[in-house]
């Protein structure tokens, strides 16, 4: 048995890099330092053994060669292919995906569009006052969690970076640090907050506006309650924010998925801008998938846009709402799909799944997923962080090498995509 220390967990945007694994005979026996979700990911079983293809409504086993050729044929045959997913794979594979899309003339989008896509739209309007997570750990005496529930979605966030993490300027973090939680329901995270602000559903924008007005000295105009929050509480929270030495606002899909979408996030950013005239304040989106931020980084340096990039006309075009996966599927605007590192059949509205059913679909995934049911072929690959390695970007933009713990015969995402890409170049005579 071998103990491997400081491994990186490939589940959520925290990318905890202090995981210990016990490994024997090419199998992971146990994990240490992981949260429940991370542990489940490392201990995952039931990998697909070989590529499969749907023939006359039934699944048959095929070889990798046949799978690659079929994938290339389906994609090259399309007038508007959609390459979706990417957050569950490493950066090197995402780069191959972009190159592939350049010659395919398709649309490439990541799960960003259904998590923090709206945050990016807001950042594109007003920017992003942020910092790395260690900066928060070492300095922040006020933490705000807005529309997020780290105890369930990012289970080690509070112990590694915020509430319970001691830092250079805070040697007893738990006592010296205040935590405010803003949500429409009393989540597990809300239960441990010093201050819980319960907002009516759809009321985030109004509450953020009210806070901005108070910070700007216009508190007199604020009515007694705003979206379920009393003026007294708003004044108190505004005061906590203005008088802290370092405030860190973390926000989740509670803002991005609610009514108003990115305009909520824009208002939060402008609140933080305003607070920086009084003290130090930063803002960080709680990114979900372990490498969703990496997909945004790779897409940005390769195409100029962080997600939802349409290459149909050869040059890159970007317009979320039009070039995003949900909209394209719901409007039936693609005629082939390649899905990698995500499971849209589980996470997309039914109307989108119906178009997946009616369109040729290639799935690249180690496990049988819900999207498998609608695929024409599926190609199993190694899991990054277990039997493959590559680069990922943490929710705060820190690039981390995700290492592998064991060897397997599965190709990595990069290897299989490179084979598909090379074959495409060959078929197109490039």
């Amino acid at each position: 048995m071998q103990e491997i220390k400081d491994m990186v967990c490939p589940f959520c945007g925290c990318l905890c890099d202090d995981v210990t694994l016990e490994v024997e005979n090419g199998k992971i026996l146990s994990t240490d330092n992981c949260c429940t979700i991370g542990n489940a990911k490392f201990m995952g079983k039931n990998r697909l053994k070989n590529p499969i293809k749907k023939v006359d409504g039934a699944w048959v086993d095929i070889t990798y060669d046949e799978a690659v050729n079929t994938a290339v044929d389906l994609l090259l045959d399309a007038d508007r292919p959609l390459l979706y997913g990417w957050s569950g794979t490493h950066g090197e594979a995402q780069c191959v995906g972009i190159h592939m899309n350049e010659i395919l003339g398709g649309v490439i989008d990541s799960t960003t569009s259904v998590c923090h896509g709206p945050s990016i739209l807001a950042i594109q309007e007003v920017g992003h006052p942020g910092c790395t997570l260690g900066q928060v750990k070492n300095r922040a005496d006020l933490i705000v969690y807005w529309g997020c529930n780290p105890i369930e979605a990012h289970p080690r966030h509070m112990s590694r970076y915020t509430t319970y993490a001691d830092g250079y300027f805070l040697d007893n973090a738990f006592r010296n640090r205040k935590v405010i939680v803003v949500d429409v329901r009393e989540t597990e995270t809300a239960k441990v907050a010093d201050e819980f602000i319960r907002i009516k559903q759809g009321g985030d924008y109004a509450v953020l506006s009210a806070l901005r007005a108070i910070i700007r000295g216009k508190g007199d105009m604020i009515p007694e309650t705003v979206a379920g929050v009393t003026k007294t509480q708003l004044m108190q929270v505004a005061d906590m924010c203005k008088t802290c030495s370092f405030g860190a606002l973390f926000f989740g899909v509670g803002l991005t998925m609610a009514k108003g979408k990115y305009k909520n996030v824009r208002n939060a950013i402008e609140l933080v801008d305003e607070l920086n005239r009084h003290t130090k304040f930063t803002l960080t989106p709680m990114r979900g998938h372990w490498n969703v931020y990496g997909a945004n980084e790779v897409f940005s340096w390769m195409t100029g846009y962080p997600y939802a990039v349409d290459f149909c006309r050869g040059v890159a075009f970007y317009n979320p709402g039009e070039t995003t996966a949900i909209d394209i599927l719901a409007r039936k605007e693609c005629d082939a799909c390649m899905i990698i590192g995500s499971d849209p059949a589980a996470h997309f509205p039914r109307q989108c799944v119906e178009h997946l059913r009616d369109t040729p679909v290639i799935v690249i995934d180690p496990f049988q997923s819900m999207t498998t049911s609608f695929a024409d072929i599926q190609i199993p690959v190694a899991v990054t962080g277990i039997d493959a390695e590559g680069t990922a970007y943490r929710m705060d933009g820190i690039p981390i090498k995700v290492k592998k713990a064991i060897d397997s015969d599965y190709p990595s995402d990069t290897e299989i995509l490179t084979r598909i890409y090379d074959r495409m170049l060959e078929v197109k005579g490039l």
Partner: protein
Amino acid sequence: MKFLFNTGRTIRQGKYIESKLGQGYAEETSLCHIHPLDLLDLGVDEGENVLVKSEVGEVVLEARADEGLPMGMVFVSYGIHCNSIISACTHGTGMPDFKIHEVDICFTSEQRKTPAEILEQLGGVTYAGN
């Protein structure tokens, strides 16, 4: 009764995410969290099933009392069940209204479907395994 429908991540849903056709995932993603007083108004006991209808579809879920919710709001974890009733409209932003849908909820004696059953109903072909 009218409710606002909210969805999100739960730790159990996250734990079972790599085996979505298993029992754990099926259980977790088909629970409908409701405030206990709303359950009283609905005349539904915890553990009984409710039928949730939106503009675009309907789904059977199991009621679970949750005092953390405000009255008038229900919460369901991400998964294929909640997506049966979520509209694909993104208001030009790329993002559906996962956090806010108006729904109608009533008691039902119908059984919950498993994810595999929903997939098959949609025309999917489950891979039997190897």
